[in-house]
Structures are given as structure tokens and as C-alpha cells.
């Protein structure tokens, strides 16, 4: 996949930053405004998907390879589980929002609501990474088919590239 025309690339270069930042914003303020970890994560994934579609897979994969993505995916999930287990460790109860009880922040502040923002970040990380990952695997497969022509139905993963 070579990517798209110059116009698309130029626009993407500007737009992707905003999409990405919007995603981050939605993740961070999930406890104050509509949105949250999941919505933000999907939007972050969208910014990378846009990049891949516009510039071609090599460009995007150089920045965020499948291995890193898979790592972020597991890492996000682990972080969330850890937050829940910390509740077990500190408060004696699974999923206890121990931070909120210890440091009750002011309402409407960014630093409020205890573990909720942390959980939002974990979910944002996890969702963004996993959606981009599945996009990569679904689309790389497609590319291989293109190169080998429509007739070859048995695909091969490019050695050393992509997933394992």
C-alpha cells in the first residue's frame, strides 16, 4: 500500500494531531464531561488508522509497530486490573476506590474521583492499542492478497514483518 494523494497526506498531517489530542482530552476528562476511556481510545486509534490509510502501512508501522501495540494492549489491561487489585490491597475490597476515600478531590477538578481517571487512562490505552492492532492485522492481510493477485487465496505473512 503506497498511501494516497498529496492532498490527503497534507491534510492528514494537520488533522491527525488534532484527532489524537482530542482523544487524549476525552480520556483525561472522562469523569467530568461526556466521553471517557473507551470513546477516547477509539478516537486515538482512529488517528493512527487515518495515518495508515493516508501514508501507507510502512510509514505508520514504523511509528507504532504491532509489537509495541500489543504490549500497550496488555499493559493497559494490566494497569486496570492493578488499580482494582490495589483496592484489594489497600481497602481490603476488590475494586475499592481507595484513592477517593483517602484524597477526596474537589468536584469538577481534573484531579478528582480517585481511581476513575486512572482507570480511564488504562482503558483509553488498552482500547486505542487494541483497535489499531486489529486494524493492522486485518489490513496487512489485505495487502498481501493484493501483491499476490486475486487468484492466490493462500496468504503468507511477510517474513519478519507484521505479526510474528
Amino acid at each position, binding site marked *: 500500500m503506497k498511501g494516497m494523494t498529496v492532498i490527503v497526506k497534507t491534510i492528514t498531517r494537520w488533522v491527525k494531531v488534532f484527532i489524537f489530542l482530542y482523544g487524549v482530552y476525552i480520556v483525561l476528562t472522562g469523569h467530568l464531561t461526556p*466521553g471517557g476511556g473507551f*470513546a477516547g481510545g477509539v*478516537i486515538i486509534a482512529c488517528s493512527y488508522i487515518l495515518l495508515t490509510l493516508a501514508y501507507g502501512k510502512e510509514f505508520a508501522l514504523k511509528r507504532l509497530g504491532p509489537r509495541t501495540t500489543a504490549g500497550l494492549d496488555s499493559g493497559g489491561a494490566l494497569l486496570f486490573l492493578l488499580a482494582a487489585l490495589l483496592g484489594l490491597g489497600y481497602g481490603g475490597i476488590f475494586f475499592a476506590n481507595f484513592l477517593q476515600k483517602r484524597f477526596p478531590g474537589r468536584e469538577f477538578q481534573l484531579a*478528582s*474521583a480517585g481511581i*476513575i481517571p486512572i*482507570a480511564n487512562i488504562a482503558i483509553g490505552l488498552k482500547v486505542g492499542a487494541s*483497535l489499531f492492532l*486489529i486494524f493492522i492485522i486485518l489490513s496487512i492481510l489485505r495487502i498481501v492478497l493484493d501483491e499476490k493477485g486475486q487468484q492466490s487465496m493462500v496468504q503468507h505473512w511477510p517474513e519478519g514483518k507484521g505479526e510474528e
Partner: protein
Amino acid sequence: MGTETILIILLFFMLAGALIAVETKNLLSSVISLGAIGVGSSVAFLFLMAPDLAIVQIAVEVVLLIFLIRGTIARDVIPQRGHIAWGALAVVVVLLAGLLAFGTYAFRGIGRFGQPVISAVQEAPSNRYLAEGVRETGAVNIVAAVILDYRGYDTLGEATVLFAAILGALTILRVKGFTKGGQR
């Protein structure tokens, strides 16, 4: 125009989209109609005062359409064909029509639209979330308070489903299932 009227129009639009998605011979139109239904439900969420859901729905919709189009559509240019088993079709249609009729009758057991069950049941957990949520969790977005604190465990489950699905897709799409000499 009341919310109810708007929603009825929207639902008719979605139903039409669904029928097109189901019956069209062209897979691309079918997928695009699915997208239209998704956008329809996102707009419906806005009217139903669910901004969180509207954002998530529209974002998921976009991603899903990309997956469907890039993953599948370009591969099958031949429109679907084949004979139709009219007998089985008739049975299914009758069955579903019966279900629809019974459902319409049964839905009288639910309160009318616009009068949620939480108005009737004062002890319902939702009322507690609305009244005490901000104080108890510190989050002013009550939906966030519910998914990440009161019902945070569900959200862990949700993240796990996604994790399992991604891992599953990776597993299914791997080149070789067996090691050398593994498969006789």
C-alpha cells in the same frame, strides 16, 4: 416536534436501512446501510440524552465500517446468488412475526416511553447514583461514576472481552496453525 416523534421517524429510517442492508444483493451497499443504522442510533442517543453513548457509537461505527470494508468487501465482487429455500423462509418469517406480535402485547407491561422505571421504584440503584453519585465517587459524569466505580468490575470484564477478541483475531489470522510435523 416532541422527542418521541423524532425518535419514531428515526427508527423508521433505521428499519428501512436494516431492510436494505438485509435484502440488497450488493455487499457494499449492505455494509453502508449498516453504517447508516449506526449513525441513526448515534443520533437517537443524542436525543435520548446519552452524549457518552453518542460519541462512542459514532466512533465505533467508523472503525467497524473501516474493518468491514477493508477486511471483506474488496474480496467478493460477485453478487451473492443461489436458490432460496422458500419453506424454511416462510417458517422463519411466521415465527418472527409471531414474536413481534407477542412482544407488542408484552411491552404494555413496561411503563410508557418517557416514564422510566426509576420514577416508579424509588429504591432503584439509579436514583442513588443520581442523588449521591457525585458525593460518593467524586465524578460529576454519573455514567463514568457508574462504569468505573459502582460497576467498575463490569468494565474490567468489558476490557477483557475486547482483549480476548483481539487475541482471538490474531490467533485466527496466523499463517500456520501447526508446527512442522505437528499435523499428520
